[in-house]
């Protein structure tokens, strides 16, 4: 049995013969496409470690059935940097020490990218924290995460202004 679906993953269009209808997007990425940057922490949408962008929106990839996503666009942590140039959120996570063990980090970063694109949080740390509250960090690096998101948001809006000018 093989279900053919087409996904654009990190900008590359791929035709995938899905071997099993039960496969989640997370297990497709991790176990079949060797994109292991996206992590599995709970497999039931409670921890956020598996966050990716689906058609520009952040989702828990453990709760998305791959077979239902034909034609979708997926952005994972592996597709965020431009070559050697880190995305501003990635750079800010290093600068603000926004992680310890690093296991939740890909999900935190993808969630932050999604949050900034949503444009709802503004520069209010409390709203950033609320917007990031679906991503657990057991090491407790939350302060650095909030600072990193705020800084990345500032640098991205400067880029926007430059591009608009």
């Amino acid at each position, binding site marked *: 049995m093989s279900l053919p679906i087409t996904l654009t993953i990190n900008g590359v269009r791929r035709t995938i013969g899905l*071997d*099993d209808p*039960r*496969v989640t997007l997370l*297990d497709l990425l*991790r*176990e079949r496409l*060797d*994109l*292991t*940057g*996206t*992590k*599995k*922490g*709970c*497999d*039931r949408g*409670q*921890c956020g*470690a598996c966050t990716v962008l689906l058609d520009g929106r952040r989702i828990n990839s453990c709760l998305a059935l791959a077979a239902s996503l034909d034609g979708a666009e997926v952005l*994972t*942590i*592996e597709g*965020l*940097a431009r070559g050697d140039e*880190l995305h501003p959120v*990635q*750079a800010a*996570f*290093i*600068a603000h*020490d926004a*992680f*310890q*063990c*690093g*296991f*939740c*980090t*890909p999900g935190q*970063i993808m969630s932050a990218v999604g949050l900034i694109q949503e444009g709802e949080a503004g520069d209010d740390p409390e709203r*950033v*924290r*609320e917007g*990031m*509250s*679906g*991503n*657990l*960090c*057991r*090491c*407790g*690096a*939350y*302060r*650095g*995460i*909030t600072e990193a998101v705020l800084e990345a948001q500032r640098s991205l809006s400067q880029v926007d202004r430059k591009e608009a000018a």
Partner: protein
Amino acid sequence: MAEIPQASVSQHRHGGSIGQPLTRRDGLLKVTGQARYAADNHPPGMQHAVLAVSSIARGRVTFLDVAAAKAHPGVIEVMTPANRPPLALDPDAKMDPFMFRLDLLQNDRVRYAGQPIAVVIAETLEAATEAAALLSPRYEAEPARIGLDGNDSFIPPVVGPGYPPEVRHGDVEAGLAAAEHRIEAIYETPAQYHNAMEPHAIVATWDDDRLSADTPSQGLAWAQQRIAGLFGIPPENILIRSPFLGGGFGSKGMISGPQVLGILAARLVGRPVKLVLRREQMYGPVGHRAPTRQTLRLGADRQGALTAIHHHVRTATSSFDDFFEPCGQVSHTLYASPAIATTAEAVRLDTGTPTFMRAPGEASGSIALESAIEEMAQAIGMDPLEFRLRNYAEVEPISGKPFSSKALRECYAQGAASFRWQERPLAPRQMRDENGLLVGWGVGTATFPAIMFQGQARAVLRRDGTGLVELGAQDMGQGAWTALAQIAADGLGLELERLEFRAGSSDLPDAGIAGGSSHTATAGVAIHNAGADVIAKLAELAMSDQRSPLFGANNAGVLARGGRLIRRDDESRSDSYADILARAGVAEIEGRGSAAGDPAAQNAYAMHAHGAVFAEVKVEPELGQIRATRLVGAFAAGTIINPRLVRSQYYGGMIWGVSFALHERAELDPRSGRVMNANLAEYHVPVN
């Protein structure tokens, strides 16, 4: 593992690496998804293993529908007690306190809910998961013994890693009788589960009688020894790679049963196997912090000096193994009192075996002791910080030893100043915020022993002026890749950019366990000594070489810095490592170093780190809803290798304190013995 690619460092460093707030050297890998954790490995031919676990807490498995599971497409094998490959050592054997009994399908007994009872191996994760459900186990169940009153208590032979269960200093009853103020209070703490973000995982590959395993480990050498014993093979036949742990908190210190089941599954099917615990499976076979009921009896005289401390703990262990949360330890060190007693009792319950969990004993013990101190201060009518200072331990109270260092008074002072503690009214319920919420301010003391394990390291200096330092250190997020490399660079007198640093693999020198807040000290001393060994050999070469500017410098000595040896008495005279080695015709110089606690120093001094944490909490007066709105911590923990990493550790520790007080507790169903909130939505951990 080889050197890791690193992010460009934006800070400018002057002089040594130690003490610099460098960003994490593993940061680039971690923010790009390239850091390879155990479950990210996928060797050719790898199969997926999924555990089936018990839904009863005590009894026997009477039936497993192995035929149904095996009939599921893609399933290769079902491992049960009937076909589990043989082991060289009984998993229930216990030769030392750090050897935990494991559930490795040795029989049909069930001793806790969530115990592995079978392993399904299949070509895909989906097939293995569904087939595990098809096993539809049947049981002969016995009543579960759950809760601190669930069984008769006994006095444990030891508590924690081997401390005496009872310590008595002075006459507590006389001290209480003579006291002007007495309080007796009982505090219960619930069972807690580590819940590292990374579930326990293993990718195991056998090649004849050689095993390679990718699995997170806080103690590579211990894991290697344990596996060697179980399988009857030499430790050197086992390679464990653990470059990054997705958190440990104690749960990855000793290798767990499920990790060994992954190795057994690979043995059974003769192919590489990946086994990853599901989140709910982490509430049984991989340890937890046991529940406690602590009774504190304190006496104080009219001036507020403590006359007696009695700290009694009732805790729990499993029906089949021993680990007793050592709550009384904090009462041995924190406050001066002429009489101190700590006592313990325990019950055996039908749960998994408890183990070390972040500050085992200190976390659970200090929440009780510090709460009692607070209640006593209130009974006396004294400011709780003043009461603590009134009973400040200038020497370790029971042993009488001086502290090797203790800056707790400064922690209190700086924390109080930053928090504006002096504005705190003495009586409770006096402060409200602009929304009418009640505001409370409190203080707590942090203490943890400064422990050293044994460790080794190897250092090499090469003719091209670069260096290598390697050891089996483990980074679970505390920052070993960065902090230990900083120590290594200084030890070899090299810029960090010229250093290759290897860690996280069992084929490197044993660096000791990453636990007990000991790893930077243990591994760091071994690294420092390995570097010193290399530099001594290099200096010998230079000082005996007539062509060297350092010739004859023996008495004055040399120091190593920036890739050069420099005369101490005349810094204008120096020689580069590369030149020294080139003239001597030597390709490289190797050095070894080791570390261990110094018994003479340990006999002479009490060694602890200290801290003070101040908290503001707001409570909705009608609903009782609690918000922790402000936390200030001040800590004294010795030499700080990297302030940026240490700040994160302090924040994390304080957040775990909030979590202990307000969030996390496992709820066990007294009828079934199951953890009812075995998931991250209902077992509450702090969120952003």
